[in-house]
């Protein structure tokens, strides 16, 4: 499989968001989301809300959902760790059925990582009792739908770990 074919394309991610009625993307860019950002920015159906710290995304998402919108939170795993109390308080305790798309910095398929944020990412999610799905490429995109459906069914946040990010800079 070529590298391009193996990647998770931003078009796939955006299509999944739109298929599930996402209205707002609350985000702080991570290292390879620029192409997705440009796509979202050009799409009138998606309202972008940029934050300066990932925890801020949680209360904004809670407010959006309370008001009847459908937000997604798009952040990196580094920021997810920082946002722990906001995830607990604003998303989990208010039962906000939001999908968090989290760039899995440092993740490797062979399991040997030199980046400690990858070491703690899944441990963090397990400690919080948050269910998560790993998405590496377009062939995994059905898991994005699974996450959206599970969030609605359980009325809880669900996480998508983006294992290969979006390869925006590799085009």
């Amino acid at each position, binding site marked *: 499989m070529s590298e391009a074919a193996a990647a998770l394309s931003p078009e796939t991610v955006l299509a999944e968001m739109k298929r599930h009625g996402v209205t707002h993307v609350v985000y702080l860019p991570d290292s390879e989301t620029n192409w997705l950002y440009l796509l979202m920015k050009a799409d009138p159906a998606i309202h972008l809300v940029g934050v300066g710290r990932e925890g801020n995304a949680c209360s904004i998402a809670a407010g959006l959902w309370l*008001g009847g919108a459908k937000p997604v939170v798009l952040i990196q795993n580094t920021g997810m760790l920082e946002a722990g109390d906001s995830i607990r308080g604003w998303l989990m305790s208010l039962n906000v059925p939001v999908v968090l798309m989290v760039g899995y910095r440092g993740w490797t398929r062979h399991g040997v990582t030199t980046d400690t944020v990858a070491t703690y990412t899944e441990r963090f999610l397990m400690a919080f009792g948050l269910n998560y799905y790993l998405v590496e490429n377009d062939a995994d995109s059905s898991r994005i739908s699974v996450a959206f459906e599970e969030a609605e069914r359980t009325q809880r946040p669900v996480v998508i770990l983006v294992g290969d990010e979006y390869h925006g800079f590799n085009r």
Partner: protein
Amino acid sequence: MMHTADMMKAVAQFRGDAILVPGRSGRYWINLSDNQRLDVEVGDPAMGGHAGLGLGLALARPDKKVMLFDSEGDILMSLGMLATVAEQSPKNLYHFLIDNGVYATTGGQPVPNADNIAYDVIARGCGYPRTFAFTEIGDFERELPGIMAAPGPVFVACKVVPEIENEPISRRRRWQTRTREEVVRDFRAELGVAK
């Protein structure tokens, strides 16, 4: 300085059918509210997020005014939120800061540099088009009609007298009449949004 209850009483006259986020001042607001089903009284889920909650509501419901009571401790924890609010610039958001200068629920310890911060200047620097600062209730009451008549986002800093709860949390009087789940359910039902 003014008292929080007096400040809120003045604001209450302009509530109409607005969504109201009491922040961590719900114990004052509950006696003034004339529409609790539109009060997003969720207590303090995680410090620093009330402005975000208000912003999210304002973006989701541009057809309704959103009135938010924030605190200086929350703002200091999430200063960047002011930039996000200003960038989004929701015309329906009215952001009131209740600044007592202390962490009142933990015994009244001062917030960092409590006596020397100009929150209205910070908000203006972040891009809020209109900002105000008041220390006296008379001035606040006089300007409030004009503040509420113009579009948001607006930031209104009010310096209030600290009212410190120096009791262990478990011994404090519980003023809430609804659980957090009931608040969420009532609010979304009032707005007519799905489960």
